[in-house]
């Protein structure tokens, strides 16, 4: 879907990560993987450390912490929030949704609405699109957009192809209605035929969690997993990323009537350095500022990774002036969403672990 919206702005951003640090090389050695192999993977994919949630901490807690820090930094009273959108695939419960739980924790007015979007790595852009739509045409003045997951809990510790990739994080963004008609160009898409490419087979209504779904199996590379784990066909995800993401990015740039040289920054879902660099090369945007090193500090943060890349990858530039930014989220669904707009200044809070130690 192609669409252009206006009369809203991204006003603030915060991200809270898990507080436990995992070291890729140390963990790999502890699981009996050779140092040469680990160093090769670390260099190519860009893995070093990741931040995972401490026991008992959920995506809801991480997003609540990010929200409280952001509201304090922006001096916003919770009574002025009309909408909470919570993007997650690791909610606290199957019912009620995380957005209503956060609505209660923050003490929002009963006239405000709260709903979840069940999306992963593409989800922040979907949430931004919905928030913008509600500001532009839906009667909302201020939207709190939260996104985040605890994907590190879905992988098996003895699966060296999956477990080292993921970190846990929650983001908060404030989106506001404005009188300025700055356009936002969006392209959003899905490919449900490829839904098995990234999947947690068990734990939902189709295949409820049971002792059978926790029976472990070992694949030909010695990686262990069971049906409640997150599974991914890496080669097909990579091909999907190279097929859909550059096309979506080039479309939003064309719709904005920008040249490639006009783009100040390309902010992609921080899957890993290898995918990001491949996409930037295929788009012809290697010369633009393309943050790609967040995954070596935090791991793949699912739907919180674009906010994290905006905060840490653009830093002061985002805080001080407007910039022409292109972004794209892509992943589970399969699903993708790209945007192009002049963004900023944006109030940002530094990325911080929760709870602080």
């Amino acid at each position: 879907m192609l669409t252009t919206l206006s009369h809203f702005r991204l006003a603030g951003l915060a991200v809270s990560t898990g507080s436990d640090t995992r070291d890729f090389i140390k963990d790999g050695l502890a699981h009996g993987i050779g140092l040469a192999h680990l160093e090769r993977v670390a260099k190519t994919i860009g893995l070093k450390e990741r931040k995972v949630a401490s026991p008992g901490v959920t995506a809801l807690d991480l997003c609540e912490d990010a929200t409280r820090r952001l509201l304090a930094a922006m001096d916003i009273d919770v009574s002025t929030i009309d909408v909470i959108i919570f993007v997650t695939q690791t909610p606290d419960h199957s019912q009620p949704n995380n957005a209503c739980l956060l609505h209660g924790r923050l003490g929002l007015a009963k006239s405000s609405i709260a709903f979840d979007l069940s999306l992963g790595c593409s989800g922040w852009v979907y949430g931004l699109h919905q928030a913008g739509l509600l500001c532009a045409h839906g009667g909302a003045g201020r939207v709190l957009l939260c996104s985040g997951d605890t994907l590190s809990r879905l992988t098996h510790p003895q699966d060296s192809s999956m477990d080292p990739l993921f970190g846990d994080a929650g983001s908060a963004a404030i989106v506001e209605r404005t009188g300025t008609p700055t356009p936002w160009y969006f392209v959003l898409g899905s490919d449900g035929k490829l839904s098995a490419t990234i999947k947690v087979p068990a734990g939902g209504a189709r295949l409820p969690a049971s002792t059978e779904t926790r029976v472990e199996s070992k694949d030909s590379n010695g990686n262990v997993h069971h049906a409640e784990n997150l599974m991914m066909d890496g080669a097909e995800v990579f091909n999907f990323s190279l097929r859909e993401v550059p096309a979506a990015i080039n479309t939003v740039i064309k719709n904005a009537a920008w040249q490639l040289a006009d783009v100040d920054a390309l902010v992609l879902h921080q899957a890993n350095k290898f995918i990001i660099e491949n996409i930037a090369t295929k788009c012809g945007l290697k010369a633009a500022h393309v943050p790609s090193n967040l995954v070596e500090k935090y791991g793949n943060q699912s739907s919180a990774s674009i906010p994290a890349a905006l905060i840490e990858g653009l830093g002061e530039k985002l805080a001080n002036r407007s910039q022409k930014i292109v972004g794209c989220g892509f992943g589970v669904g399969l699903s993708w969403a790209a945007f192009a707009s002049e963004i900023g200044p944006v109030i940002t809070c530094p990325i911080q672990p929760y709870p602080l130690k």
Partner: protein
Amino acid sequence: MSSTFESHLHALQKEVDVLVGVSPDAPLSGLPQWDSLAILLVISHFEHAYKITVTGQEIRQCKTIRELIQLIPQS
């Protein structure tokens, strides 16, 4: 061996580290580092060098470097 084959071989070995020094007819299954990461490197190389998309399954079905190079359409 044709010069085209040689140039494809040279380019492939430059991008996919685990194939350096491996004979074009040696079984890939005998290489300890012929893994999912190596397959990603092959996909990336074919995409950028030849603008072709190969699937992980197509690559896994290749038994040798020669068969990998046969995935490249002849111009």
